[in-house]
Each structure stands twice: as C-alpha cells, then as structure tokens.
C-alpha cells in the first residue's frame, strides 16, 4: 500500500493520469466546438450566418446538439448483427482517442513519451478502420456495406502514402519519438532547427492529402458520401451511437492535425523561434486571445436577452483569463522563488500547438467546402498512381540529400532543396503519365 502511495505521489506517475482525464473530459466538448467552428466557417464561405439561435452566435449549439443526440431513440435494425453493431462505434472512438497518448501538446503536456511514439499513433489510428468496416457489415444494409468496402480500401491505400510521408520526417529527425521529432525542428543542437515543412514540402503535401483521405473527409468522404450512399457505413446508426461515430471522426481529425503539427510544423514551437527579429511574435498569443475576449465583451452589449449576455460574458471572460495566463510569463514577475518567465515554454507551447492544429483543421474545412467529391476509382488512382510513387521518390531523394549533406559537407538546406526539385520533377512525370492513361470508363474489368 505504501508502495502504491509512493508510486502515485511522484509527478511523473500521477501527471499522465491527470492528462488522460483532461483529454477524455475535454475532447467531446472540443469536438463539439470543432463542429461549430466548421459550421460557422461553412456559413461564412456560403454567404450565410450559420447557427445563431442557441446562445449568442450559436455558442451553445454544441451543447444543444449533444443533448438532442443523447435523448434520441437508439435504433438497432432487426437484421443487424447486434453485438458487432454495438461494438463498431466503440472501436472507432477508442482508436481515435488512444492515439492522444503519444501526442505532445506542449513540452510538458504529454501522457506517455515513448521511443516509438509516431509508430504508436499510426498503429492505433489504423485500428479505426475496423469501426467503419464492422459498422458497415453489421448494419446488413447495402449502402452500409458499400460504404464499408470503400472505407476499408481507401484507408488502407492512403495509410501507405501517409506512412511514407511520415518516414521522410523521421529520416530528417532520426527518431521515432514524437517529442524528439519536435525538438529536432526547434533547435540546431538536437536536430536541424528547421520546420520539416520547409525541408520536405512534398512530403507535407502528401501527408495533407493522405490525412484528408484517412479521416474520410471531403473531397475523399466516399465511405459516407451522402449523395450516393445516403450515409455510407453510418446509414443505420442513430442517436448516441451515431454521435460516437461523429466524435470519432472529429477526434481523428484532431489526431492527424496534431500529427502534421508534430511532424512538419514544428510542434509547440513558435514560428521562427530561432530568429530574434521575430521575437515580437511572443506577444501574439495574449494580443490575439485578449482581442477576441474584448470583442466578446463588445458584442455582449448587443445581445438581446440577459442570459445571452451572461453566456457572452462567460466566453469573453474565459478568453481574457487565457490571455492573462499567456501574458503572465512575459511580465517577468517573481512568485516567491519561482520565476514566472520559466513557464513560458509550457504555456506558449500549448498556445502555438493549438493554433497550428486549428489552422490545419481550418484548411481541412476549406477544401471540404471548395471541392466536389472524387469518384472511388479516381480516388484509388490518385493514391496508387500518384501519391505513393511520388512519396517513394521523395524518400529516396531525401535520403540521398541527407547522405550528401553528411558526407560532402553540403548545407542541409541546399541538399533538401535539390531533393525537393528531384521529387517535383518525378511528380510532374507521374502526373503526365496519369494524364495519358485513358479515363476510367473506357477501361473494362478494372475492378
């Protein structure tokens, strides 16, 4: 008993548990607000307002949606395979949420630092496909089955491309640990000191495309293509179970956004962290958050009802509090023996990480509202005939560039620039080859 007590009084032992609780508790709420963000962005791009009724500017819409979904009838089709039908959404959400274990949200905020962190995230998130496949099979519905078959083929194909893009970043950093991957991008002592998006832009592009496909988002949302397959694998799901799929989808989106942030966008580091000229960007977090908070308070005056004013006040207050928290390390205060300035990496790291994730999510949404949907065979052709060959060439080019850099004393930037040129040339070649191929409808017996 004493041993247990001792075990759980060590910070490195109880902190992960707290982090787990925080993530599990916050994630559904976060997913709800990502949905709200998506609806607002969609509305903005489509010349409308989006949700405005529940709370000021629809700020309470996620809560209303959650309540609605929870009290809806939970329908299980008569012909469905009950156990698998119930199991499938759980698999999806478990896979999505387990991946958070290895994601470093800041220098101190990580549940488990492991030496195969990236592999762990890839492995666990690849389990999510079983949720889709089993849901589609268990529903005993042709639309669901088609959605599941599409989902399985799509995710397995694009995982290859995503994995190969990840390999590029791993090559550059020389480690599989998520934390060290970020460290390699921050300082020259531990790595390159460049964000890998600058060293390997092609790999980043491949990762973006593959991550969109892996999370089944438009324009690759074929497993749930609503105009073709009604709702694909989710057709027979309703109420709470459906919302679990929804949660899993958004959790997976946040995972791939975090992964992109870790691998290519420098994790929790500030943009241009090594350049002193850009040090003024340290003031961006408090200014941004404070600005939004003050805007909330300004809009507060225009709210029609008292409770809406209250909601606005709460949101504005939260933002101002966050702004104060972010501003605190910049003040140089001394709290007793602790220097507040020492908290800066932790607090600002979290801010920049979240900011990058949000930017990535915004990009996801942007392309969703801009592009039509791919057809299944075109999706497969894009994956196998373009992305995977290009990423293979990219790996060879980057590896070759690294060898040249290490053995010939060529600057890393120069080596990577030529590696990128080689890859782009190969990409052009593959694109040209793909153009020359006859269109799909002319090819008989393709599948």
């Amino acid at each position: 008993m004493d041993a247990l007590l001792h075990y759980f009084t060590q910070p490195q032992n109880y902190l992960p548990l707290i982090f787990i609780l925080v993530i599990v508790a916050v994630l559904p709420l976060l997913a709800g607000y990502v949905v709200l963000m998506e609806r607002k962005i969609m509305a903005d791009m489509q010349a409308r307002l989006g949700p405005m009724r529940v709370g000021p500017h629809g700020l309470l819409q996620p809560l209303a949606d959650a309540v609605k979904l929870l009290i809806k009838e939970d329908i299980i089709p008569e012909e469905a395979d009950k156990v698998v039908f119930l199991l499938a959404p759980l698999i999806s959400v478990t896979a999505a949420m387990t991946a958070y274990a290895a994601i470093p949200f800041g220098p101190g905020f990580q549940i488990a630092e492991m030496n195969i962190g990236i592999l762990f995230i890839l492995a666990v998130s690849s389990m999510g496909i079983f949720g889709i496949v089993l849901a589609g099979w268990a529903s005993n519905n042709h639309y669901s089955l088609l959605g599941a078959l599409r989902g399985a083929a799509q995710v397995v194909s694009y995982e290859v491309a995503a994995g190969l893009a990840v390999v590029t970043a791993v090559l550059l950093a020389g480690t599989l640990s998520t934390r060290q991957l970020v460290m390699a991008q921050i300082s020259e002592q531990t790595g390159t000191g460049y964000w890998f998006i600058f060293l390997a832009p092609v790999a980043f592009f491949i990762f973006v495309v593959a991550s969109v496909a892996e999370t089944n988002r438009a324009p690759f949302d074929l497993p749930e293509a609503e105009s073709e397959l009604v709702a694909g694998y989710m057709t027979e799901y309703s109420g709470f179970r459906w919302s679990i799929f929804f949660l899993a989808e958004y959790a997976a989106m946040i995972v791939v956004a975090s992964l992109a942030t870790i691998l290519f966008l420098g994790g929790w580091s500030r943009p241009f962290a090594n350049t002193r000229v850009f040090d003024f960007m340290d003031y961006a977090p408090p200014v941004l958050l404070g600005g939004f908070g003050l805007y909330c308070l300004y809009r507060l005056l225009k709210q029609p009802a008292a409770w809406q004013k209250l909601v606005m006040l709460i949101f504005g207050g939260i933002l101002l509090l966050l702004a104060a928290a972010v501003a605190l390390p910049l003040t140089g205060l001394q709290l007793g023996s602790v220097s507040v300035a020492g908290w800066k990496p932790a607090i600002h790291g979290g801010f920049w990480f979240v900011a990058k994730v949000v930017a990535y999510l915004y990009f996801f949404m942007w392309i969703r509202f801009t592009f039509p949907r791919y057809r299944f065979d075109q999706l497969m052709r894009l994956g196998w005939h373009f992305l995977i060959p290009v990423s293979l060439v990219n790996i060879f080019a980057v590896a070759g560039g690294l060898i040249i850099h290490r053995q010939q004393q060529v600057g890393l930037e120069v080596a990577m620039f030529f590696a990128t040129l080689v890859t782009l040339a190969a990409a052009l070649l593959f694109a040209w080859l793909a153009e020359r191929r006859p269109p799909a409808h002319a090819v008989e017996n393709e599948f």
Partner: protein
Amino acid sequence: MLLDQIIFFIFAAIALAGAVLVVTSRNAIHSAIWLITSLLATAGIYLLLRAEFLFAVQIILYVGGIMVLFIFVIMLVNLDVAIRQIQFNRQTSVALVLALAVGGLLPLAHYFLGREITLPPPHVAELGPNTEAVGQALFARYMVPFEIASVLLLVAMIGAVVMAKRRV
C-alpha cells in the same frame, strides 16, 4: 516485480480466449474480431518483452493490414449460406485428440523432465533502443534474407493480383 506477471496473465488470458473463440465462432466475421483481439493481446506481450518495434509492426501490419484484408474478403464472399452449414468436418474428434496430444507434449515434458531440461540463465545485458537494434540487424546481418522476403512479398502480390483478377 509482480506487476509484470499480472500483465502477462491478463494478456495471455485474452490471447488464449480470443484464440479459442476464433476456432469456435460460427460466423467468420466474429472469428476475425476475436483474432484481432488475440493479435492485440500478443502485441501487448511483445511490449512486455521490450520489443516495442515489433509491437508497432504487429499492430500496423498484422492488425491494420492483414486483418483488414481478411474482413474485406469475408465481406466480399457473403457467407450467409456458410453460417448455416456444419462448421466442423468429420475428422474433428481425431484431430482434437491428435492436436491435444501434440500440444500436451510440452507440459508433459516439463512435468517429468522439468528439472533436467533447464534454460540457460537469461542474459542481463540490455538491448538498447529497440528500433535501432532491429534496424541494424535487419539491414546489416540479415540483408539477404530481407531482400528475399521482399521478393517473396512481390511474388505474393503478383499472385494475388492474378488470382483475383481472373474472370472465368
């Protein structure tokens, strides 16, 4: 420490229960789900054995690759009919006896000869970072087998494509 042993028993129990259910399930999809469970428990055992890289390979390749393929095929060959048929063949009793006899050899040997056959004491030397060690071995000492394995995979790939594409 005791914790490792408890974890071992948990994983072993899951792996064994999953394996039994793979063999006994009537529905092939259920078999596949149980096989996934068993494979995941095995991955946990690899982790217990400090083989992290193999843990990741097991999940990415075995569970995320091969098992998706299995489920894909099970869904393609709709097994509504197969579920209603007899699942075990006529040699079941003979096979059971034989398999259990073979499987019982090890416990018997351990019971009767346990003291005479002993493993050499375990090496205490640490392997170092697992991924690097595996990588060094794979690309240096086992280069030729590695290449042969890739040729094997290529052959399998061609074979599978030819097999699935043929229309009679």
